[in-house]
């Protein structure tokens, strides 16, 4: 029997058209390069704020131990004073928040109440810059030990808004 060779180009090598694939791949590459945004990682702090009306407390539930942190502002919105339960902790940012963190750590670690029973109420002046609030919340929330977070207090709330007169 006689077999005929189907191709006479030697070896029958099939060539795939790569040009279109390379085009698409380059388009994808350019898309990802243009949409790339280098952003620092962000985290958040949960916060609560009581509604205007305060309900009657439930007698069956133990009320949480309430700690009050007040932040007074200067006219330009910078920090004037940090108060913890009426006691001034200074205005030397960020050392005053480290003192607040220390005070909170003492209460949280004293065994008077567990972290779940304690609630911190933060009362800022209306014009105080947001950066100080973040630091105050962070000082109440806990501290970092290496890469591990030690939590002091979970429940943090804002006091009702006090709008400036006029």
């Amino acid at each position: 029997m006689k077999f005929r060779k189907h191709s006479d180009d030697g070896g029958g090598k099939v060539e795939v058209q790569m040009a279109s694939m390379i085009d698409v791949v380059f388009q994808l590459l350019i898309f990802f390069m243009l949409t790339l945004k280098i952003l620092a990682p962000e985290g958040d702090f949960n916060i609560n704020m009581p509604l205007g009306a305060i309900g009657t407390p439930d007698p069956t539930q133990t009320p949480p131990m309430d700690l009050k942190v007040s932040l007074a502002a200067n006219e330009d919105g910078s920090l004037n004073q940090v108060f913890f339960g009426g006691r001034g902790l200074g205005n030397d940012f960020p050392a005053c928040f480290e003192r607040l963190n220390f005070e909170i750590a003492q209460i949280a670690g004293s065994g008077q109440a567990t972290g779940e029973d304690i609630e911190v109420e933060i009362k800022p002046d209306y014009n105080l810059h947001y950066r100080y609030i973040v630091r105050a919340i962070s000082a109440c929330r806990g501290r970092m030990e290496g890469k591990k977070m030690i939590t002091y207090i979970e429940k943090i709330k804002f006091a009702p808004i006090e709008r400036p007169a006029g």
Partner: protein
Amino acid sequence: MKIKHSKPQIAEADMTPMIDMTFQLIAFFMIVTNFEQTQADERIKLPTDRLARPPLQARENEVVLNIGFERNADGTKKDPNAYVYYGGQPIPVLQYGPRLKREFEISKRMYGEEKARDITVVIRADSDTPTGLVQELIKMGQEAEFTKFALKAKSGTGEPGEE
């Protein structure tokens, strides 16, 4: 005289290493691209804090509100009033209440009332934003029936001047 016909020779470059490299680059950019923070507005200069760590489990649904100032290229404020950026459009903070109500209504229709109440309103405020305005925004959120609120900060050492 006999003339020999030879086939024209085409020099073919080996494309394999280039394609390999290109695929590696695509894979790199695909991994690095963060599609989750698309709601973040670049005009907002968030404060930094040590305890601000990305959550281990991402929230299913959230409403992100960006509050900031119109700034010049050098970072100075063009306008002392803070705005909420809604799709890039600045809206005065105290006029944002109706939009939050609309947002809640849409969420209620999409996910049901119970799930809509569980949506966290995430506030990304500029470091210089007056805290009173952040509180006003939380109050407006409560009036719109949202119940959970969170304040954003950038991860960092929290030292002054790092922002």
